[in-house]
């Protein structure tokens, strides 16, 4: 059982001299849903790619219970870390079933093909994401909500102890947004390490055990939801336009406040 994913001193640049991540430390533990928030361009997705071993940092380490992730082969990594990507192409001739079985690639023998255990993982993944009704269809036929559930189902079928999720709720309606976050929280409760990159501060606040705030390539704050959903933490990061409040059960929320426009008299 994997207990801890540890990143230390991650520095990353796409072009020389332009650091996207500048010395990020992050600890993730089993059973916790952690949300990584921050404005556009703060380096969230890049950090996720580094944690997944998909991007090689200039310096710093990513270790899973003391084992270095970047030095593993793709197959070894895939057994440990599942990624839900933000964007996938339309995949117009890919069946949902084949797509989800793709999550089993690292476990399926090249010559023997999928075994019963892989079929079961496929079923479990689709069932966990409430997507069993999609299984016979092509990926391109799915609605945005169904598609997102199927992409998460693939990561579930991968049965990796670490789940890294990049903006899973873009283009989803509120109902589906909540259901995706519920699912991620449940997956964390089952004993996984789950990190979700998101712009949905309020969903993150309601479902996460902890939040981490990235700004300008640095991790500026990390802590409980109550400690993070404060003006002292978020205003320096997102600017002055945030309005902070409490729901009737006392949980914090934040909404962007529009400046009132005065109609010009003419």
């Amino acid at each position, binding site marked *: 059982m994997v207990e801890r994913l540890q990143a230390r001193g991650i520095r990353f640049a796409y072009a020389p001299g332009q650091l996207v991540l500048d010395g990020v430390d992050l600890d993730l533990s089993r059973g916790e849903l952690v949300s990584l928030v921050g404005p556009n361009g703060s380096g969230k997705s890049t950090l996720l790619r580094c944690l997944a071993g*998909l991007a090689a940092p200039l310096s710093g380490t990513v270790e899973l219970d003391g084992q270095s992730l970047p030095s593993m082969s*793709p197959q070894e*990594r895939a057994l440990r870390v599942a*990624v839900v990507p933000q964007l*996938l192409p339309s*995949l*117009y001739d890919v069946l949902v079933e084949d797509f989800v079985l793709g999550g089993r*690639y690292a476990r399926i023998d*090249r*010559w023997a093909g999928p075994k019963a255990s892989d079929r079961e993982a496929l079923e479990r993944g689709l069932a966990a994401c409430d997507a069993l009704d999609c299984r016979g269809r092509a990926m391109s036929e799915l609605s945005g909500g169904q598609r997102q559930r199927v992409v998460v189902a693939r990561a579930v079928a991968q049965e990796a102890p670490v789940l890294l999720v990049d903006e899973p709720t873009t283009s989803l309606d509120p109902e589906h947004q909540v259901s995706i976050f519920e699912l991620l929280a449940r997956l964390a409760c089952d004993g996984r390490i789950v990190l979700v990159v998101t712009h949905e501060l309020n969903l993150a606040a309601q479902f996460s055990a902890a939040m981490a705030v990235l700004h300008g390539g640095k991790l500026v704050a990390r802590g409980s939801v109550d400690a993070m959903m404060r003006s002292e933490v978020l205003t320096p990061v997102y600017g002055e336009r945030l309005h902070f409040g409490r729901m009737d059960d006392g949980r914090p929320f934040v909404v962007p406040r529009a400046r009132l426009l005065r109609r010009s008299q003419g």
Partner: protein
Amino acid sequence: MTRRDVALALGYGIALGVLAVLSMLLGSSSLDAQQLFGGLGAMLGLAEPLERNAQAIVELRVWRAICTLGVGASLALSGGMIQGMFRNALASPSLIGVTGGASLGAAFAILALGGYAPRLVLEGSGGLEAFAIPFCSFVMALATTALVATIASARGRASVTTLLLVGIAVNMCVAGVFAAIQYLTLEEWEVSRAILAWTFGTLDDRKGLHCATVLLALALATLSIPFVARELDLLKGGEEDAESLGVDVARTKRIALVSASLSASAAVAVAGQIGFVGLVVPHLIRLCGAGSYRRLLWHSLPVGALFLLGADVLQRFLLGDGALQPGVMMSLVGGPFFLFLLIRSRREVSTW
């Protein structure tokens, strides 16, 4: 293998057999079925050879049919792999320099030999030129793709976009040299005619060694299918996505590139420029519902063979002795077909 696969394999086998026999019976000198099978038996050492002339005709036609099958299958498989690697259904082996390199190699060989007429290589005159030209174009095709791959991967990992751009640039250079050779030899009738004839492609006068070259390269490429098919399917979601699932992306691209260029180079070297087979056949298979590379790559072997052999039989049946060369015929059939595909899949093209 399911029962459906067995039935399909059987169907492919029968169709290939029938077309191959038809193709061997068609030709400028008449040959009946009895002579054909007698001559075939003699080639296999089962019967007495026919009289010299008839036996020679049978042998030529057998090699021609085998060569056509091998070339069709090679180009189709190579096209399927290249499309998978480029994640683009409009890619074909010529993108990475196979065709351009082969043309240049053939032109060099023709220059060195001082001319070559495609119909003069019947028995007796055989020998050097029959093999020098395919050999040179094979080597040049491989060298060109190797050059494209090396330049594209000069800074670590080769991105598919870089590979595409380098391919275009190298193709342009190669085409320039080829055009220069054509222009400079314009006055030398034998040479310029031979170069021009080569660009049309030919399936006539093929010999055992030609077939062996194509089939050997095809066999090697076929052996690589199990090592790339599932990987190419996962690459549809992008390289990073595939890697996160455990695919060794660099290795997959390397194997696909080597297999595809090997089989396509051998095919083009032996038969000349035959466009569209590599582009169209994978599409045909997709249209029939086998969109996953685990199925597509296997199907591309018999479908590619049937496509080229079928088109060849059809045009020889329709045009008789005035038959066009395969390159011309493929462009005439393939061009409109490709346009049809483009119009049909306009949505995908617009998201290129």
